[in-house]
């Protein structure tokens, strides 16, 4: 970068050459955040992410509502992954309130959670397509995800904000003939996403834009504490569905997808492979699910807690491990709720990866971190 500069640039001193660029919040390639980058010619020399444009104080609000009424607003950080984002909170609340979950509800939860993971990943993939200027890759995932949204709509009644998980189970039982419809849609969906390889993942333009950009080595992925697909793309085999199975994941056969490269291409491919795994899990869960039975342990409107307690529960969401730390002081409202979200944990990798990268690669590196700003800001 320093050795052979073009003639015009060589005349200037380094400090004069460096330019500060604001990317966002009004920018097609930034989402709901601002990234301040300093560039020298075409190369990024420093990057300072500035999140917080959607900081809505969820954690403070949770202290004023009881364990049930917290549900709707705690799922808002990621409305298209709303089952997964509620999952750790619901697991924690169950432990604090001391309730058992019926067996069938656990399977319904697994199905809903996997469907949501696909819905989330499809949206993410669609936006990734836009960021790379590949409009077919916006249209295909955005259209196919409606199939699964239909299923979730049948199951819970809402398009994206389901509020389906409650402490004690799920809100409603599955509608009639849901299993058949689900199996049909999921099979078709799996067939569809396999076609993405031809148009996207084997596309030489995509490969040349994402291969070997933003390489995160295995040591750094561990040191920076990244999670989810970013971690697995760097060669660390870590998935909470296997390592710390919750609900009925123990009884299901779950595989992880690990890639060694750690570049943007690997980071964009791992979630896609995970979607196929989700289809497998849904099929298994549909098979093993008890055919009847209750799906919810009913609670009083203002449930009593067992006493002071702290719990930390975590699940594997679409963006990686999602932890919820609840401190209860024995009242009906939680004393403190903290969501430790995957997006926020992956954000630290952004300044690290962008250093020395070309400015044109910024969108592809940024969005490959599986980052959803609303979730990171909470």
């Amino acid at each position, binding site marked *: 970068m320093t050795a052979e500069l073009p003639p015009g640039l060589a005349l200037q001193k380094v400090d004069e050459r460096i330019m500060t660029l604001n990317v966002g919040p*009004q920018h097609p390639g930034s989402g709901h955040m601002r990234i301040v980058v300093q560039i020298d010619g075409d190369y990024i020399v420093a990057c300072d992410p500035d999140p*917080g*444009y*959607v900081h809505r104080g969820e954690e403070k609000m949770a202290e004023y509502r009881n364990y049930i009424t917290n549900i709707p607003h705690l799922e*808002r*950080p990621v409305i298209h992954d709303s089952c997964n984002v509620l999952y750790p909170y619901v697991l924690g609340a169950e432990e604090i309130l001391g309730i058992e979950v019926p067996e069938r509800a656990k399977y319904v939860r697994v199905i809903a959670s996997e469907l949501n993971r696909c819905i989330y990943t499809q*949206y993410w993939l669609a936006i990734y397509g836009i960021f790379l200027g590949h409009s077919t890759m*916006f249209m295909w995932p955005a259209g196919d995800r409606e199939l699964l949204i239909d299923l979730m709509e049948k199951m819970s009644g809402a398009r994206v904000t389901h509020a389906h998980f409650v402490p004690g189970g799920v809100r409603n039982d599955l509608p009639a003939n849901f299993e058949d419809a689900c199996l049909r849609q999921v099979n078709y969906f799996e067939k569809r996403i396999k076609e993405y390889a031809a148009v996207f993942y084997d596309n030489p333009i995509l490969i040349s834009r994402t291969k070997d950009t933003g390489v995160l080595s295995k040591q750094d992925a561990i040191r920076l504490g990244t999670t989810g697909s970013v971690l697995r793309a760097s060669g660390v085999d870590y998935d909470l569905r296997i390592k710390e199975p919750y609900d009925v994941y123990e009884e299901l056969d779950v595989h992880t997808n690990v890639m060694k490269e750690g570049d943007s291409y690997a980071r964009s491919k791992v979630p896609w492979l995970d979607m196929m795994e989700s289809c497998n899990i849904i099929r298994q869960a549909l098979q093993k699910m008890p055919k009847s039975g209750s799906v919810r342990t009913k609670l009083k409107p203002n449930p009593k807690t067992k006493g002071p307690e702290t719990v930390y529960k975590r699940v594997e969401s679409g963006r990686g491990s999602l932890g919820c730390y609840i401190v209860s002081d024995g009242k009906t409202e939680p004393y403190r709720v903290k969501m430790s979200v995957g997006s926020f944990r992956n954000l630290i990798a952004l300044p690290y990866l962008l250093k020395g990268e070309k400015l044109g690669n910024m969108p592809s590196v940024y969005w490959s971190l599986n980052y959803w700003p609303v979730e990171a800001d909470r």
Partner: protein
Amino acid sequence: MLKDLVTPENANVFVGKLGDILEKAIDKPLGYAINWGRIWSLWPVHIETACCSVEFGAASSPRYDVERFGIIEAFGSLRQCDLVVVQGTITRKMAPRLRLVYDQMPEPKYVIAMGACAITGGLYFDSYNVLPGIDGVIPVDVYVPGCPPRPETLIQGCILLQEKIKRMKARKFV
């Protein structure tokens, strides 16, 4: 006779008067044509503010395909846009930026407030960092309620805005 009337001193006044008369005469058809052009080019600024942007994105997906109405086409520069769709919560950090974006847009510009949060604060009515609706920041033309509004609702809101523009005085902005 005209020569007597128009002296070098009052030439400007006279031409201005003539323009007014001319404009009055063809206002109706001209205004209609201008408005007709405007309603089919409602291009939004690319500013996402919160979770409603998921449904905003879904509105351009193949199932809803809002671009068939000639509206809400994803577009780059705000200098060429004439619509702000406020996609949800406006936090205290975002509000000055939203105003800045609005101020930089050329006239005419329209605003759709999408989602309960943009209308009243919605779920976050008691949060410390959320504005109770965006009316205090920018003027709103159409409110689209819902949390989040379904894409159909957003399309309906846009069609309402088109109806509204049709009845507006085009001359105000000429």
